[in-house]
């Protein structure tokens, strides 16, 4: 048992790497998902097709194959990526493709009358998206995006296979040095569970914030605050 307790710092160092990759890949994933999801609905056929190709490619093949490609095959073309970059790129692009589908579905779920009202008020195409469609779509897309964030966290365990020292990798080295396989893997599973639950709790809070306009009647203080903010000018949507 002591051996396992002594090994905990080793696992926690791995957890740091896991968290780091998850965050970086999530940022890349979001940066891909939003534009690609919206572009899949573009009026231009070429744009639609290109965005669709991205989504189909990364969803159609496995994250592990993509990871190995970036790490083992690209160097043969003279492009050498360090494990961290390869990991973030592969996982971010992969989860971004799934995210794009979520974004697309959520955007499509906003009633067309909303866009028409925005056109009638002479908003630009960009304003219609940014001010009218996306804020409403956000409510529909947050729960599935939360699930994707958890899937991403789980996917990061794959980077142990390209020698990144994440939780899973450190668990293997610890097991090789001290044994106690059961305890170590139980601890590791628990760590992933805690991290995933943290994501889940965070996303719930975000959902409540973003979906405030769908809630029960506003209480007076909040209404007063909103009024103040409205007249002073700076409320986020």
């Amino acid at each position, binding site marked *: 048992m002591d051996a396992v307790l002594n090994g905990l710092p080793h696992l926690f160092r791995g957890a740091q790497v896991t968290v780091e990759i998850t965050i970086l890949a999530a940022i890349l994933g979001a940066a891909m998902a939003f534009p690609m999801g919206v572009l899949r609905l573009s009026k231009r056929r070429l744009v639609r097709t290109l965005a669709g190709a991205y989504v189909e490619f990364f969803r159609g093949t496995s994250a592990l194959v993509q990871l190995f490609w970036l790490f083992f095959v690209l160097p043969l073309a003279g492009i050498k990526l360090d494990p961290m970059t390869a990991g973030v790129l592969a996982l971010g692009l992969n989860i971004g493709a799934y995210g794009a589908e979520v974004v697309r579905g959520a955007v499509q779920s906003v009633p067309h009358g909303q866009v028409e*009202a925005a056109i009638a008020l002479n908003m630009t195409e960009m304003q219609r998206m940014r001010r009218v469609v996306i*804020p*409403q779509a956000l409510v529909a897309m947050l729960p599935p995006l939360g699930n994707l964030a958890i899937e991403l966290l789980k996917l990061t365990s794959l980077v142990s296979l390209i020698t990144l020292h994440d939780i899973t990798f450190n668990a293997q080295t610890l097991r090789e040095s001290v044994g106690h396989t059961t305890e170590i893997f139980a601890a590791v599973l628990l760590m992933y569970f805690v991290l995933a639950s943290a994501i889940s709790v965070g996303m719930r809070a975000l959902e409540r914030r973003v979906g405030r306009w769908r809630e029960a009647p506003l209480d007076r203080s909040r209404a007063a605050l909103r009024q103040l903010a409205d007249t002073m000018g700076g409320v986020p949507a």
Partner: protein
Amino acid sequence: MTILKTTTLQSDPVERQAVPDPTPMKASDMVRFRQVNKRFGETVVLRDLDLDVAPAEKVAVIGPSGSGKTTILRLLMTLEQPDSGTIEVDGEHLWHKANKRGELIPADEKHLRTMRTHLGMVFQHFNLFPHMSVLRNIIEPLVRVRGMSREEAATRGRTLLDMVGLAEKECAYPGRLSGGQQQRVAIARALAMEPKVMLFDEVTSALDPELVGEVLSVLRELAQQTDMTMIFVTHEMRFAREVADRVVMFDQGQIVEQGPPCEIFKDPTSPRTRAFLKAVLEH
């Protein structure tokens, strides 16, 4: 409301004699449809439509369901594109613009944006932005589209909310309002943009009967006070009679007859108008 059955153009030849000759071009028309055709797949919705609306004129468009009334408004609001023909608003082509050689070419988005500043529309189902408070529904387009300062926009928004009797609801989200209240906000929102032409598409037909009155009285007052050009598509015959300068009876994509409300309602010349009015009024 009783709704007449839609018939197709083939099954019932259009009664041409009831249609007055297209009025000669007047320089002052605010809205002018010329030979406009629109079809959705097999359905011919508008056929060689000519329609003129003078500045400050209040026109009520009536007619059976599916006759193309909404389509007229949607073409004007650039929500739908005509298949052929031209539409002018305030002397400028809506869907076309002239190139250097003076030929009409299809309008680009920039031209459409300019033209849309002249137009405003209130929808059957309100289409308020549910994620914005009532006041923000009005402020947001003013700030984003008209480039107005927030303070100025808020002042205008409050004035208009006051006018439609909803001053105390400015912080509420649309989901908390009754249909009638939502529609009044939608009217205020469209008015705030100060269009030259306002389009109203059956703005009371999605409302519970007891809420129709409050919206109509706002519109009545509005019509009497402004010199904005207004086109109402409506099934409220009493409202049309009180408010409109001219009633246009529409059927199967064409104008069946048009004239001052007293003539149309008292003494319609077309049998189709008579049948339609009978069906609606009997109800």
